[in-house]
């Protein structure tokens, strides 16, 4: 009489039945469902708040610009005078400033990221942009604690679900002596382990598929483009890989006793999800310390004084380079201060940008360190990928800042020559002032930023599977 190995479906169905019978399964899945729902609800509330804030800004801008346009029309017949110049400065100043708004990304509820501290809008006018950027007024105490956002739940708390489902996978049976009996059948330990892992991985897969879809469903604008669908899919893949990595890790760290499995599982979670990223943070701060922030204020002071000294010289050079903009007999003479003021602001912005570059350099060094470190820390890789997909990563905000910079330059190219050469703004000129056009990051850029994270998670999973295989071979039932 020959024994046939039980089929995969039999093994998996049997395991699924056992899994459902355990209280730990229901406790862990219910707790995680609750946490995920909480994270999604908080994310939805956050994006709704963001949306309402942007609507208020746009309404205010529309009313303000309409009022200014009426003033331009009302003064159209008046001869060019100092009042006209005041109107020109109003167009370039607070009355005519334009907002560069970062639109709410479709998966914004996924990760707070930079939205907690970085500006989501810039007010563009002839005074330098940086001075008018408005970081959120969040309670600093709350920033110190952090939000219970979905990225935190998925990166830090979610691993506890696969660890709970996967710990004691074989050790409970080993302790009870059932494992030897099972392995006396024509079935290998690896096959048994994989069959045990399969229903658990199924649970992980369900969560991985549902959560990104739920995040998209609560976004203010539920438009579904191929780019958004691709982001949702990428997110699903990343979550599945991350979850299965922890599941395999839970199975791999199994020892002889289920009680030691619990300790090892907790220790591995604390090490990988908490201590390692925190230690890497310390290492980054140690290796690439940022200059003291006092330097930025002092740089502003120095560039302000420098600007005060050379602004008239800069204006002279400007008129030499752009003779058509220079004041002539047919143009009303403004005071030198008017032109100097524009040059003065430009010079300050240049000085500040130079001081900022030292900080950016160190931040880039840290980013480079992260690009290597994520291969040793799956939580870091996932968090980075989630922020990229949610468009709330430092890179996504840098993309927005660059667009705001470009818009500022475009706006100034239009505004500054007209003001310096004393051309009075007409209603047609006013309507032709460039407006901010948002170009979302192309999907290929997002995919390129996410790909190394995906590779890091794949590598981590491959390593965990290899370790599981090696340990399985070494360990006698």
């Amino acid at each position, binding site marked *: 009489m020959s024994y046939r190995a039980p089929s995969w479906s039999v093994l998996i169905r049997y395991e699924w039945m056992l899994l459902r019978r355990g209280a730990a399964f229901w406790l862990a899945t219910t707790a995680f469902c609750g946490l995920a729902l909480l994270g999604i609800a908080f994310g939805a509330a956050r994006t709704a708040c963001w949306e309402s804030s942007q609507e208020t800004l746009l309404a205010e801008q529309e009313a303000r610009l309409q009022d200014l346009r009426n003033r331009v029309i009302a003064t159209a017949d008046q001869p060019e005078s100092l009042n006209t110049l005041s109107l020109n400065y109003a167009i370039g100043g607070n009355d005519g400033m334009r907002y560069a708004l970062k639109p709410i990304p479709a998966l914004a509820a996924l990760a707070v990221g930079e939205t907690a501290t970085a500006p989501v809008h810039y007010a563009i006018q002839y005074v330098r942009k940086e001075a008018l950027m408005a970081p959120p007024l969040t309670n600093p105490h709350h920033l110190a604690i952090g*939000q219970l956002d979905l990225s935190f739940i998925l990166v830090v708390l979610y691993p506890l679900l696969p660890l709970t489902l996967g710990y004691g996978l074989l050790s409970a049976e080993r302790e009870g002596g059932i494992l030897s009996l099972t392995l006396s059948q024509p079935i290998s330990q690896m096959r048994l382990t994989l069959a045990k892992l399969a229903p658990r991985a199924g649970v992980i897969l369900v969560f991985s598929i549902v959560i990104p879809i739920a995040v998209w469903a609560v976004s203010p604008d539920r438009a579904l483009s191929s780019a958004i669908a691709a982001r949702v899919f990428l997110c699903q893949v990343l979550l599945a890989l991350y979850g299965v990595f922890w599941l395999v890790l839970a199975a791999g760290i199994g020892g002889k006793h289920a009680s030691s499995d619990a300790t090892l599982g907790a220790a591995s979670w604390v090490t990988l999800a908490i201590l390692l990223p925190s230690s890497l943070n310390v290492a980054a701060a*140690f290796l690439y310390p940022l200059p003291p*922030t006092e330097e930025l204020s002092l740089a502003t002071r120095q560039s302000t004084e420098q600007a005060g000294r050379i602004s008239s010289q800069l204006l002279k050079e400007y008129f030499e380079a752009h003779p058509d903009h220079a004041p002539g007999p047919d143009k009303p003479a403004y005071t030198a201060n008017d032109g100097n003021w524009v040059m003065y602001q430009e010079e300050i912005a240049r000085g500040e940008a130079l001081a900022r570059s030292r900080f950016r350099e160190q931040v880039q060094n840290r980013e480079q360190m992260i690009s290597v470190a994520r291969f040793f820390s799956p939580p870091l890789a996932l968090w980075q990928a989630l922020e990229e997909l949610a468009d709330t990563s430092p890179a996504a905000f840098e993309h927005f800042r660059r667009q705001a910079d470009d818009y500022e330059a475009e706006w100034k190219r239009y505004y500054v020559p007209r003001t310096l050469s004393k051309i009075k703004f007409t209603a047609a000129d006013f309507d032709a002032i460039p407006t901010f056009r948002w170009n979302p990051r192309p999907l290929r850029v997002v995919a390129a930023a996410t790909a190394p994270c995906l590779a890091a998670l794949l590598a981590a999973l491959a390593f965990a599977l290899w370790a599981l295989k090696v340990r399985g071979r070494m360990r006698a039932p």
Partner: protein
Amino acid sequence: MLSAFSTASQTMLVARHEIRCLAREGRLRVVGVVTLLLLVSAVAVSLRQSRVQQAAHEQAVEAERADWLSQDEENPHVAAHHGTYAFAPRSPLAFFDAGVSPFTGISTWLEAHHQNLFENRPSDDATTLDRFDALTPAFVGQVMMPLVIILLMFSSLAGEREAGILPLAFAQGAPFRRLVVGKTLGAAVVLLALLAAPVSLAALLVFTVAPVESTSDLAYSVFLLILLHLLYWGIFLFLSIGVSARAPSPRVALTTLFAMWVVVCWVIPRASVSIIDREIPVPSAASFQAAIAHQLSEGIDGHNPSDQRAEQLKVKLLRQYGVSRVEDLPVNFDGVALQESEEYGARVFDRNFSSLWDLYRRQDRLSTVTSVLSPLLAIRPLSMALAGTDNDSHLDFVRAAEDYRRRLVGFLNDDMIRNAGSAGYQYHAQPDLWRRTPEFQYRPRVLNVRLAGQTASLACLLAWFTLSAVMAVWASPTRNSHRRT
């Protein structure tokens, strides 16, 4: 007397036994080494940063004052627009608990007409790594130490029950409560031995970065910080003993305590922030600035003499001095108008900033209420207050800087009022005026003021300590319940 002696000696016997058991276990060595490594690296890196920041602060203050004094002959109002920077001092204990400092900005520009927001926040240059908690000594003490305690204590009674030692102890007449007290004492001694050296060293090192005049304040703060953390660790010690006493096996004890740690140290603090932000929303920066701009534009504008309020002021002054022309006034009208503008602006800023800070305060009060769910939310504000890195300490500096701005601009306007005459904005003051301007000096709040607003958090921490101690003793199984198991 004999009975009391016997009780004490039995308790000490249990404590000694617990110390021996913990010392024998490999777990203590692993946990101990990891904890010490974490603590030492956190202290070393934080102290290094603290020193660099302290030096940068001193240099910046000096450079800014030198810049102010180096102004040439200038109109006082131009000097008021030149302004000066106020740099927030770094508390010597910020190395232990950075608190809100990375998120508040380190300087503000003090200039005429405007109360500016603080700028140049260290958090502006965050990377993805900063999403994870920073490894500061406060993080190790408040988040990781509870886990260390749990890992050391989860099997203290549950393990003995599983090994069958507990019934033997009962059979020999060991009262359960004495057992609990003895085990708690033993574990406390082990923990103290583990932490005594790094904590003492860090406490001594902090005096090397502190100004001499604040030494006694600092000594009390360090003492209270240690005391409060001992109290906080005591909570987890009692909870661990209580759960270990009730749990049927060490595995159940560990799972329960670990889940409790995750909820108390990770979920509740962050969930409370998300809920409070939703319940008590703060205005967006755009609407906050727009409200101030709108209210200011409604008021007097010091640069615009055609302003309606300026006109009213002119009429009032002419009547007051009995003259018919501004030129005949014995004071400079521009200076008076500027000062009126400042005073009006001050009312606008006070109204708006006060309402923002009131919102922060309401949020913080609600956060204190949620500390009934997590002792971490009780110790965190206490620790930040003792370290001088809490919201109130920051707001105190903001108020002092704004107060100085108003005094400085008032001083310059006063010079213009008295000396500008008909020259108005063409009047140039001598450099001597810059030397006579008051220098900005800020004294951080003393300890009792810092702690005055923390009564609720302290009460909460004490309540947690008392309740967990009661739970450890009361939740312990009686002999009968043990026999049933």
